[in-house]
C-alpha cells in the first residue's frame, strides 16, 4: 500500500516581509505546491493522500481560499484526507464547517472529524486525532489510539496526528505533546503500521515509522528541510515501512553570511548572489560583518540595489549585520574636495571612526551609523558631479 503523507500546507499564508508582488506569488506558490502533490500522487501511483493538520493557515481566513483549494485538489486522482490541526481546529469558527466548504467539498476529499478509523480505500484506514480547539489539554494522539485493536489482516492502518512530539519538545510537561513512547507502543503492538505527524515544517524522522512530513512549501527562515512530501510504502503483511522524500517546494528562504573588508569581498558577494538561481522565488537575508571603505560601501550598495530587484526579498539582517564604513585615503582624494568641504569631510570622518569604535566596544549589531551614512552620501554627491 502506497500513499502520500504531507502536512502543514498553511494555505492562505503569506509573508509580510515580501513586497506586494512577491507576496501574491508566495501566496499562490502554496496552492501550486498542492497541485504538484497531486502530480506526485499520479507519478507514484499512490492510493491516497493524507494531510496531517494545518491544511489552512487560520480559521479566520477569507473563505475564498476554500474554492481555490478545492480547485487544486480536483486534479487529484485519489482520495485526500484532511486532518484539522492547531491552525484550523474544529471549533465553532472552523473553516471545515464553513458553508463554502460543506457545500462544495469534492467527493474524494474527506475531513477527519473524530478518531474513529476511517477507511480511505479498501485495505487502508486512517485513525486521525483532530484538534477541536487551539488549546487541548491532553495528548490527542494517545487518546485516539487508546481503544485500538490490532489491525485486521491485509489492512494498513495509518495514524495521522498533529502537534509537538514529546522527544522534540523541550517542555516535557506540555499537556498536549504527543508522547512518542506511547505511540511507539501502539505501533509495536500491531495496532497501526505507521504514524505521520504535522506541525513541524521541516521533514523529520522521529523514530522509524514515525515521521513529520514537513511543509510542502517553505514558511519561515528557520526551517531546516521544508518543501517535501513523504511517499510511504507499507507492507501490511511484513509491516515493513519505507519512506521516501519528494521535493515539491519551489521557494527558498536563505541567510547569506559574508565578511566584507575590501572591494574584492564586495565583488565576491555580488558574484555569489548572482549565482543563485530562481531569484524571484528566493528570499535572502544578508548577515554582513567587517569594515569597508566608503567607496567599497558605495559599490556594495550599488550591487545590492541591483540584486534587490531580482530577488523576492533581499535585505540586511540587521541583528546579524555589523558593517563599519570608514573612508580610506583614496576615497575622497579624486573628488577634488578643498577648503570647507575638506574640513567637513575631516569632521565626518572623525565622527565615523568614533562611531565604529563605539560599535566595537558595545559589540552590538546595527548601531548608529549616521556619520558613516553621511560620508557615503558625500561620496555619492561629490562623485556624481564629476
Amino acid at each position: 500500500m502506497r500513499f502520500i503523507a504531507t502536512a502543514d500546507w498553511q494555505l492562505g499564508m503569506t509573508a509580510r516581509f515580501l513586497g506586494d508582488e512577491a507576496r501574491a506569488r508566495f501566496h499562490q506558490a502554496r496552492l501550486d505546491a498542492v497541485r504538484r502533490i497531486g502530480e506526485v500522487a499520479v507519478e507514484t501511483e499512490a492510493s491516497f493522500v493524507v494531510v496531517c493538520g494545518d491544511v489552512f493557515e487560520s480559521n479566520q481566513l477569507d473563505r475564498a481560499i476554500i474554492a481555490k483549494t478545492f480547485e487544486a485538489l480536483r486534479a487529484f486522482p485519489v482520495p485526500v484526507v484532511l486532518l484539522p490541526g492547531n491552525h484550523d481546529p474544529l471549533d465553532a469558527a472552523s473553516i471545515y464547517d464553513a458553508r463554502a466548504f460543506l457545500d462544495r467539498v469534492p467527493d474524494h476529499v474527506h475531513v477527519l472529524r473524530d478518531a474513529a478509523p476511517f477507511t480511505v480505500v479498501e485495505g487502508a484506514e486512517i485513525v486521525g486525532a483532530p484538534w477541536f480547539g487551539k488549546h487541548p489539554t491532553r495528548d490527542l494522539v494517545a487518546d485516539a489510539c487508546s481503544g485500538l485493536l490490532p489491525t485486521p489482516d491485509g489492512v494498513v492502518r495509518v495514524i495521522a496526528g498533529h502537534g509537538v512530539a514529546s522527544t522534540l519538545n523541550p517542555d516535557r510537561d506540555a499537556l498536549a505533546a504527543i508522547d512518542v513512547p506511547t505511540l511507539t507502543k501502539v505501533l509495536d503492538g500491531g495496532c497501526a503500521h505507521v504514524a505521520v505527524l504535522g506541525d513541524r515544517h521541516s521533514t523529520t524522522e522521529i523514530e522509524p515509522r514515525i515521521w513529520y512530513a514537513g511543509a510542502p512549501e517553505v514558511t519561515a527562515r528557520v526551517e531546516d528541510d521544508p518543501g517535501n512530501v513523504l511517499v510511504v510504502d507499507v507492507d501490511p503483511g511484513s509491516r515493513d515501512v519505507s519512506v521516501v522524500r519528494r521535493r515539491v517546494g519551489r521557494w527558498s528562504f536563505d541567510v547569506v553570511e559574508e565578511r566584507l573588508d575590501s572591494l574584492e569581498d564586495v565583488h565576491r558577494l555580488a558574484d555569489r548572489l548572482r549565482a543563485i538561481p530562481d531569484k524571484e522565488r528566493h528570499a535572502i537575508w544578508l548577515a554582513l560583518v567587517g569594515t569597508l571603505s566608503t567607496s567599497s560601501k558605495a559599490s556594495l550598495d550599488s550591487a545590492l540595489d541591483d540584486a534587490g530587484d531580482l530577488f523576492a526579498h533581499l535585505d540586511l539582517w540587521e541583528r546579524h549585520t555589523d558593517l563599519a564604513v570608514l573612508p580610506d585615503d583614496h576615497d575622497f582624494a579624486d573628488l577634488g574636495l578643498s577648503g570647507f568641504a575638506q574640513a567637513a569631510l575631516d569632521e565626518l570622518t572623525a565622527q565615523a571612526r568614533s562611531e565604529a569604535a563605539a560599535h566595537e566596544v558595545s559589540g552590538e549589531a546595527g548601531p548608529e551609523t549616521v556619520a558613516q551614512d553621511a560620508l557615503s552620501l558625500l561620496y555619492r554627491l561629490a562623485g556624481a558631479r564629476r
Partner: protein
Amino acid sequence: MRLVRVTLRNFRGVEEATVTFAEGVTVVVGPNETGKSSIAEAIRLLRTTKSSARSQAVRNVQPVGRDVGPEAEIELQTGPYDLVYRKRWLSRPIAELDVRAPVPQQLSGDDAHQRFDAILAETVDVDLWNALEVIQGQALDQPSLAHISALQQALDDSAGATGDHDALMAAVDTEYEHYFTPGGKPRGDYATAAATIAELQARAAALRARSAEMDRYVDEHHTNEQEFSRLSALEVETQARLERSEKAVRALDSLRSELTRTEDAVHTAETGHLQAVRDLSARQSLADDLRGRSEAVEKAHVRLEAATTAHDAAGRAAEEARSAAATAADRATEARRAKDDAAERVARHRDLAERDALAHRVRRARDAGTAQARAHAECASIPVDDAVLASLTELATTLRVAEGARDAAATRLSIRALGPQQVRVGDEVLSEQPYVAAVLGETRVVVEGVIDVVVSPGTPPADLDRRVDDAREAFEAALRTSGTESLESARVAHERRRAAAARRDAAQTTLADALDGATLDELEVRLASLEVRLASLEVRLASLEQRLSAREHQPEASPAVAGDPGPEAAVAAAAAGDPGPEAAATADPRPGAVPSREDLDLTYAVAREDAAEADAAAERARTAHEVARDTLATAAETVVRAQQALDGAAHELEGATARLGAARDERSDDSLEEAVAVASASREASQTARQAARAAWEAASPETLAMELDNARALVVRVDAELDTAAARRVELATLLEDRATEGIHDALIEVEAALERAQTTYARTHRSAQAVHLLRATLRSHRDEAQRQYVAPFKERIDRMGQVVFGADFQVTVGTDLAIESRTLGGRTVPFGSLSGGAREQLGVLGRLACAQLVAADKGAPVILDDTMGFADPDRLEQLAVVLNDVGRTAQVVLLTCQPTRFASVGNARTARLVAS
C-alpha cells in the same frame, strides 16, 4: 577684461558717437538723453541680445522717427583676445565679430554671437560683470556678490583656499530638500512614513483585537455548548422532581381537610361547655348574693346596737362632766377669796411696819432740829470766826514786825554773868543764860554790890515808832471789835465757835437723814394717814377673824359627787387639786399670834397658787364637759345612720330572696351541674380527635413538601430560562462567528502587517538617509560659513579702507557671509544697511563694487560702470570719493556716466569723454 572703445550709431538720440576708454577712470559726460546711459545699454545689448531679436529692449533704443536700425560696436581686450564686436538690430541686422588677436578670426551672424559668448565665458566672470554695473536708478541696491566665483577666487587667494563647491552644495541641498522642507521639517515619504506607520499600527491593532474577539467567541461558544448540555440534562431531572413533589402535595390535601374538620368540632364543643359552665356560675352567684345580703343585715343590726350603747354611755359621761365642772368652779371661787384674804393680811403687816418706821423718823427729825438750833445759836454768840481770827493774827504779826524793826534800830545790850554775883537786869535776875536785848527804854543793870548801870536808849527813828504805834492801835481796835482781850483769847473763842458749828452740822445731817428728802410735815401727814388706814384695816381684820372663827366651828361639807365618777370627772377633780385641811390651817392666822412677815408672804403665795390651780381645774372641767357633749351628739348621729343601714339591707335581702326563688323555679341547680358534666366530656372527645388528625398531618411533613414543591417549580423555571439563554446565545454566537468568518480577518491582518513592515522599512531607510543628509548638510554649511567668514575679511577690509577715506577714520562695516554689507558704523553708531539713507546706501553700494573690482585681478575682472550715481552725495563726499576712484583706477577700469561735468571733476587720472547730442 578691458573696454577700449564703444561706438553708437543711430542709437536712441545718438546719430553717431565714439567713446574711447582709459585703462583707469573714464568720465563720460553728457546731458540726459544724449546717450550717456546708452553706452552701458549698448554694451549690455551686444552681450545679451541677438541681432535678429525684435524685443522691446531693442525697440526702445531705435531712434525716434527714423527707419534705421540701431547699431553698436565695441572694442575690448579680454584674456588673450583683442576683438571688435558689432551689431545692428531691426533694420538690416548684422552681427560681426572681428577677433584680431591672438589668432585673427572673422565671424558673423549667430556664429559671431556664440563665439563672443564663448570668449566671454572663457575669460570673464559674467556674474561679476553684471554685478559691477550700476544702472541708473538701481544704485541703491547692493550687488549680489556671494556667488561670483571670480571674487571668491580673489578672496580665496587673499585668505587661503576655501574651495568652490557650489555644485556640491546644490546637490546636498537638493538631497536635503528631498527629505526636509526649507524650514527643516520632514517632507515627502519621510514625513508620511511615520504617519503611515501609526495608522497601520492602529489598523493592525484593531484587526488583532477583532481576531482575538473572534477567538473569544469560539471559546464562549465552546463553554456555552457545555452549559447547554448540562442544562438540558438538568431540565429533565427537574421536571421529574416537580412531578414527584406535586403528587406528594396532592396526598397531603385529604389530611389537611380532616384536620380542619376536627378543629371545627373542637371549637363547637368548647363553645357548648363554656355556656353550661357560665349558667352554673350564674346560679351560684345568685345564691352567694343572698347569703351576702343576710350577713349584711345581721351586721347592720349589731352595728345599731353598739351605737345605741355608745350613745347612752356618752349621755352619762356628759352629765358627769357637767357636775364636775360646776364643782370645780365653786372651788375656784373659794380659792380666790382665800388668796384675797392672805393679801390683805400681808398689806396690814406692811402698813404697821411702815408706821413704826415713820414714827421713829419723825422723832429723830425733831431731836436733830432741836440740836441744830442750839448749836446755831452758840455759833452766833461767838464773833470770832475764821476771818476775824485771821485778821487778828495778821495784825499781831504786823505789830511784832514793827516792833522788831524798832528794836533792830535800838542799842543792843548783851550781858553775861561772870561770877556768882547776882546780876539783875531790871527786875529780872540773870541766870546762867546771857541776856541779850535791845535797849528800848531805860534799863537798869544792877550787880548787887557792885554796880548799878542805867542804860538809856538814844532817840529812836520816828517813823519806826509810829509804825509800832499804828500797828498797836489797829491790833487793839480789832481786839475790841472781836470782844476779846488778846490773841489767845480770840483763839479760844474761835475754837468754841468751831465746835458749835460742828454740832450744828451733825444735827443737820441727822435731820436730813431722818427726813430723807421729805419735810417733817410731810412725814407727819403720812404718818397720820397711815394711822387712819391701819385703823380701817384693823376693823376689816377683825371682821375677818370673826368670820374665820365662825367657819372653824361649822362642820365640813363634802362635795356632792354621786355614784361612779367617769374618767373625765376624775381628771377634772384631780386638776382642781385638793385644798386639803393642811393648807387651810396654814393660811389660817391664829388670833392673838402675831404672824411674821415671811409667814404672811408664804401664806399669800400658797393661796395665790391654789387659786390659779383651782381656776385651771375649773377650765379643764369645763372643756371636758364640752367634749363629752360633742361625743354625745356624734353618738346620736351614729345611731341614726345605723338604723338607716339596717333598713336598706333588709330591703335588699328581700329582693335577693325573691330572685333566687324565681331562678330555682325555672331550672334546678342539679340540672345545671349535669349539663356542665356532659359538655366537658364532649369537649375532651373532640380534642382527642383533633390531636390525632394533627399528628397525621404533621407526620406527612407538609412544610418540607411545600418547600420542595416551590423549589422544584422555581428550578424548572430557572433551568428553562437558562436553557433559553444558552440557546439564544448559541444562535448569537453562531451568527457572530459566521459574520466574522466572512471578513477574512487573517488575510486583512497579513496585508496590513505587510504594509506596516514595508512602511517601517521605508521609514527606517528614509530616516537613515535623512539623518545622513542632515548631518552632511549641517557639517558642510557650518564649515562653509566658517570659511566665508574668513574670506569675507579681506572684502570688508577693502570697503573699510575706502570708506575711511570718504567718511572718516572711524568708518566700519560688517559684511555677511553672502558678502552683503549688513551694517555701517560711523561716529560710534551702528546702523543696519536697510535703515541707512538713500545716499549712504548708494555710496556703500558703490564702495562694495569698487572693493570687488579691486580684489579681482585685472585680467579676470570686469569694468565698474557707474551710471549717474552719487547724485545724493554732497561736495565734500564727492571730493573724497574722487580720491578713492583715482586709487581704484590704478588697478581696475572704471567708467563713470554722468550728466554733470563737475561731479567727478576731481578724479586725478581720469579721462573725460563728452557726448554731444546730434
